[in-house]
Structures are given as C-alpha cells and as structure tokens.
C-alpha cells in the first residue's frame, strides 16, 4: 500500500485530535462534577434528572409550608389548652357555688371570679398571632371575633377552615374556627353560671355543672384534633426529608460524574495521547532523505 505525505499528516492529526477531544471531555466532566451538563450530553438521563429536580424543589416548598404551619398550630394548641384550664376553673367555681353551705355572699364573690374567668376566656379566644385572629375562621382580619354584651357572647367570624398543602394530594386544616368553640357551649354555660350565682339559685348552679362538663369534653376533643395535626406534620416532614435524600441520590446517579472513574480515564487518555505524540513525531521525521548520500 502506498503511503503518501498528506495521508500521514492527515491521519496523524485526526487521531491526535480525537485523543485531545476525549481528554477535553473528561476534564470538563471533572471540573463541573457533572456527566450530563446539557440535554445533548445524554437526553434520557437529562430528562430524568430534570424531573427529579422538579420533585425535589416541590418537596422543599412543602417543607417550608410545614415550617410556617407548625408555629401556628402549636400556638393554637396551647391557646386551646389555656381555654380548657379556664373551663376547669369555672367548674370549680360552679362546684363551690352548688355547695349547700354557700350563701348569697359567697355566691356573689364566686360570680365576680367567674366573670373575670369569662374575661380571660374572651381574651384567649380573641388572640392574634402574626396579626391574624386565631379563632376567627377565615375572617382573620377581624380584630375581635368574639364580643360580649351583658354576659352574652356572640361570634362574628365564620366557620371556614384554612388548609395548607403538604404533599401533592395532602391538605391539612390548621385552624380551629370560632364557631366550633361556640358550639361547645362554653360561653353559654359560663354566662348561665354567672347569672345563677348572682341569683343565688342552687339548682340552676347545679345544672350548669353538667353544661360546663360537656363543654369541657368537647373542648378537649378540639384540642386533641389540633394536637394530632401537629404530630401528623412531624411525620410528613420526616417523610419529605427522607424522600428528598433518596431523590437527590437518584438524581446524582443520573447526572453526576463519578470522580474516581473519570480520573482513571483521564490518566489513561493522557498516556495514550503522549504515546501517540511520540510515535507521530518519530514517523513524520523519517524519510529517505536522511539516508540518501
């Protein structure tokens, strides 16, 4: 086979160019840490990695939701617990007032104390958290959703729930609306207690004990519900964090470069390139002119 000058140089340059290109690619992968930097590097791995990135970003958003909701829910739960405390104290007042040995004076004092308990309950249910009324349903801009008029408490908010999303199909309500609190009958019971204490009516006072007990039980139910939400959120948080860790490792598998493999490839390429350079230099130099006289 005839070998000509242009053949030699063209082939040599082509092969050297290929080695160089391979080294360049490896260097790119090592310095960016990624095997797939753009879609043309590996279209299927790229779209897999992109989908995971989207999921990871969504999960991070959900985690942020959990952060902001947890505080609200915990605040609600502790307010409900304080309210339950007030109900227990009111029951105590009722018990003392229902005692046969109590007289009008004692009952009057008890009525005063119950009134201040009522005021305390009012201030609890009118609490604000971050400038929003906690128990107003979704009418959070109403400053005082519960108003008292001559011992009768009425509610100005609504009974709507506010929910937050923590996963693609998982929404959880975060509030306890004021209507449910009204429905426990706690304020009616306390108003009745005050009225019957002032009226020195032992039978009426005894009747309110049952009402307060019912109200207290229902209140406990609401508190427990709110507390469950809090623990649900913790479970969801753990699940999301674990899922993200898994997704990140899948994504890394698809698109990141394996440094150990790349560095070994690089060294191999480097050796081949050096060998190719040396051989090319020797071959190109050899010709018959060096040997003719």
């Amino acid at each position, binding site marked *: *086979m*005839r*070998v*000509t*000058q*242009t*053949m030699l*140089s*063209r*082939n040599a340059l*082509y092969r050297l160019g290929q080695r160089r290109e391979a080294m360049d690619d490896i260097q790119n992968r090592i310095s960016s840490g990624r095997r797939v*930097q*753009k*879609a*043309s*590097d*590996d*279209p*299927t791995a*790229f*779209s897999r*990695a*992109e*989908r995971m*990135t*989207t999921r990871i*970003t*969504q999960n991070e*958003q959900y985690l*942020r*939701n959990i952060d*902001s*909701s947890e505080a609200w829910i915990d605040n609600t739960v502790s307010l409900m617990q304080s309210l339950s405390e007030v109900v227990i104290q009111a029951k105590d007042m009722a018990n003392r007032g229902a005692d046969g040995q109590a007289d009008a004076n004692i009952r009057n004092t008890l009525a005063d104390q119950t009134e201040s308990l009522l005021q305390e309950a009012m201030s609890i249910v009118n609490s604000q958290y*971050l*400038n*929003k009324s906690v128990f*107003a*349903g*979704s*009418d*959070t*801009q109403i400053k005082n959703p519960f108003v008292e008029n001559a011992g009768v408490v009425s509610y100005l*908010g*609504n009974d*709507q729930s*506010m*929910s*937050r*999303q923590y996963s*693609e199909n998982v*929404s959880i309500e975060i*509030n306890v609306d004021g209507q449910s609190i009204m429905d426990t009958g706690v304020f009616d019971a306390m108003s009745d207690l005050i009225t019957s204490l002032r009226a020195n009516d032992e039978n009426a006072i005894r009747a309110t004990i049952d009402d307060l007990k019912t109200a207290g039980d229902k209140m406990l139910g609401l508190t427990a519900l709110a507390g469950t939400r809090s623990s649900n959120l913790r479970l969801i948080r753990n699940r999301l964090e674990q899922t993200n860790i898994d997704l990140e490792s899948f994504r890394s598998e698809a*698109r990141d470069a394996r440094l150990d493999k790349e560095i070994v490839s690089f060294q191999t390429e480097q050796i081949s390139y050096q060998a190719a350079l040396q051989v090319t230099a020797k071959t190109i130099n050899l*010709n*018959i*002119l060096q040997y*003719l006289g």
Partner: protein
Amino acid sequence: MSISSMFEIGRRSLSAYKSAIDVTSGNIANANNPGYTRRRVDLRNLTQTNGVLGRLGSGVAPADLMRTRQRFAETALWRENAGLSKYQQSEALLQQVESIFGDSSSGGLSSVLSEFWNSWNDLANDPESDALRSLVKNKGQLLADSMNNTYNRTLQFQQQVKPQITSTVNDINRIGRQLININKELRVSDNPDLMDSRDQLITELSKMININVKEKDNGEVSIFFGGYILISDTKQNELSVNYNTDSAVQSVGVVFKDSNYEPEIEGGSLAGLVDTFNNKVPSYLDSLDTLAVNVAEKVNELHAAGYNVAGTTGVNFFDDGVSGASSFRMNAAIVEDPTLIATRAATEGVGSNSVAESIFNLQFDTIVENQAPSDFFTNLLSVIGSDIDNASFLRESQELITQNLQTQKDQVAGVSLDEEMTKLVQYEQAYQAAAKIINTVDQMLETVLSLR
C-alpha cells in the same frame, strides 16, 4: 545503423530523463499540496525502421504525462462530503440554540417556572400578606422576562443564519462561474493543473450542496443538483434565495433563478442551514409559544374567578393578549398594584387560600398538551438534545467514511516523498549513463575519424 543515429539515442535519453526529473521535482515540490494529483511520466521504447539486426530500438521518449487518479474514491468523496457538511453544520447551529434555552442550572426557564409556582405557595401560607403578593408579582415578572428573552434570542439567532445562507448560495454561484471558465479552457487545451483546480472547486462545491458530477473525455464537467442542471458546457443555472417575512418566524427558499424551481436540498452545509432555519427553529419556538399561552390561560382562568383581600375580582394575572412567548407578560394593573392578586374564592374569608393553592397546583396539572408545564419544557430540551446527539453521531460516522475515502484517494493520487526521491536517484543515474553513451559514441567517432 549509423554512428550519428547512436548520438540520437543518447540525445533522446538525455531529454527524456530530463523531463522525467522535471516531473519528479514538480511532484516533490507539491508533496504537501492537498489538491495536487501526482503526475507520472510514461517512458516508451522507440522502434526503429530496418537496421542491420532487424528491428532495433531507437531510444526512449516520454509518452504521456498522466495525472494519477482514483476515480471511485473521488466521486464517492464528493458524495460523502455533502453528508459530512450537513451534519457538521446542523450540530454547530443546534448547539447554539441549546445554550439559548439554558441548561439545568439556575436562571434557566425551568427554575424560573418552579420559583413562580412556589411563590404562590408561599402566598398560600399567608394569604393576607402584601409583602408576599409583591413577591408573587416579582416572580411573575421574572417568568415573563425569561420567556420573552428566550424567544427573542432564538429569533435573533435565526436572523444570524440568514447571511450564512445568502453567502453560501453566492459561493455556489461563484464556483459555477469559475467552473464554466475552466470548461472553456479545457476544450482547447489539456492542462493538468487546470484539472487539479477544477477538482478542488468541485470538492468545495460538494461541501455546500449535494451534487452529481459527469465528466467528458476532454475534462469538461457537467454538474447536476436535485436532478436539474447546475452547470453544463457553458450554461449555468444560478441559484437565488427567497425569504418569506410574513411572520416574525421567517422561512427561506432556495430556488433556481430562471425557472423559480425549488429543488430539494439533501446534503451539504446548505441543507443544514436551511433545515435549521425552516424546520428546527420554528418548531422549538412553536413549543415555547404553546407553553406560554397555556400557562397564561390557565392561571388567568383561576385568578379572575378569585378575590383579593379587599374583595376585588375579575382581574387577570397575565395580560389578556398573550398569544405567544414574545407577548407573554403580566397584567399592567397588577404590576402597579400587587394587592390586586387574588387568593380566595367567592364565599371565603380573607384567611382562605384556595385560589392561591389551586394556582400553585397548576404545576401538577396536565395543562400543556397533556403534560405538566415543567415536563413539557423538559421534553422540549430533550428534543433539542437528541437532535444534537443525532447530528453529532452521524457527523462522526461521516468523518470516518470521508477519512477512509481520502486515504484511498491519496494512496493513488498522493505524493510519497520516499518514492519520488528514489525515482530521482534512478533518473539521475540514467541521465549520467546517457551522458556516458554520448561520450562513448564520441570516442568511437574519433577512432573512426583518426583512421588514415
């Protein structure tokens, strides 16, 4: 045979070997000239009319000066050049488009879209907040900017391809004219250097479009493109370019000037240019438009039915006239007053976030051609990526094929210094030997003349 005719033999040898050395030195000088075909001198034996011993030879004379050609490799190379150039051109152009659409790092359209949806969720966590509404407005503007930017830069890129197409067509016409001139000259003379330049021109042309070459015995060529004559004898059909500027996304047609016939461009860099200009770029822009229109439509639908804190409703989030990615922008009213952003539905209190949540959830809905918006965009990027991948792969295989053919051609038509140097030594020795013949005959003559 007389002594003087022996002088003739000597003289003819000297001149024959001198021309042989001429040709060899020409070859050596052009050893690294890629467009040069090796010349070869055929020396033939001259026969003599009757002599003493019957037919004796009367020396040597150069017969033909031949260009050594490998016809098969040449034609195949012209054919394969078209494929190689087409894929090279496509690959280069599409890589530029890919960088416009962004990779998966931050700032690309994918991450801007994610941030937009997430801002709605942040607002859903605190629906009464004005600060978070401003944030949603900001992310909306960022999304609009990103869309507009991507679309416009792609359009600009398409514009940049235009002068490349025009200049390629001009080059084709220019080469055509040069070939016609060479054809005229080859009709009268038989010049191997002309044939070399003719072949170089044809090689250049073969990289621009797909051609068929027919060669006559005297070296004149006819070149066909798409079944029609590009060059034949002295006739040339020039090409011209028509741009259709009816819409922002333009299209181009390459036609024969006289007949206005538009041939199909199957290969060459022109094929890559025209395909990218007419097919690839418009389809990518189309997909971007679809994404923009559907996102704007669905968000507006939900938003206009929603109420903000003050109770205003019926406000669109994105502008009414969004017909594509370049007209994708926010409602100016909201830009001026972000408190107009709706978060709740009709009968709900201000703490409710149902509308904000449902807008956030649009990212999971198959609102763009049965795909979620981010999936649709990722698909678009994958399509661009596979187009590049394909072009790259085909280019590499074409490179191997053309390398192979070049090697085959060079084997026959290339200059090997070793071979030429050896021949040089050989011819020089023959030259010296021929000189010796003259010397010897001279002595013979002297001997004869000195007879008394």
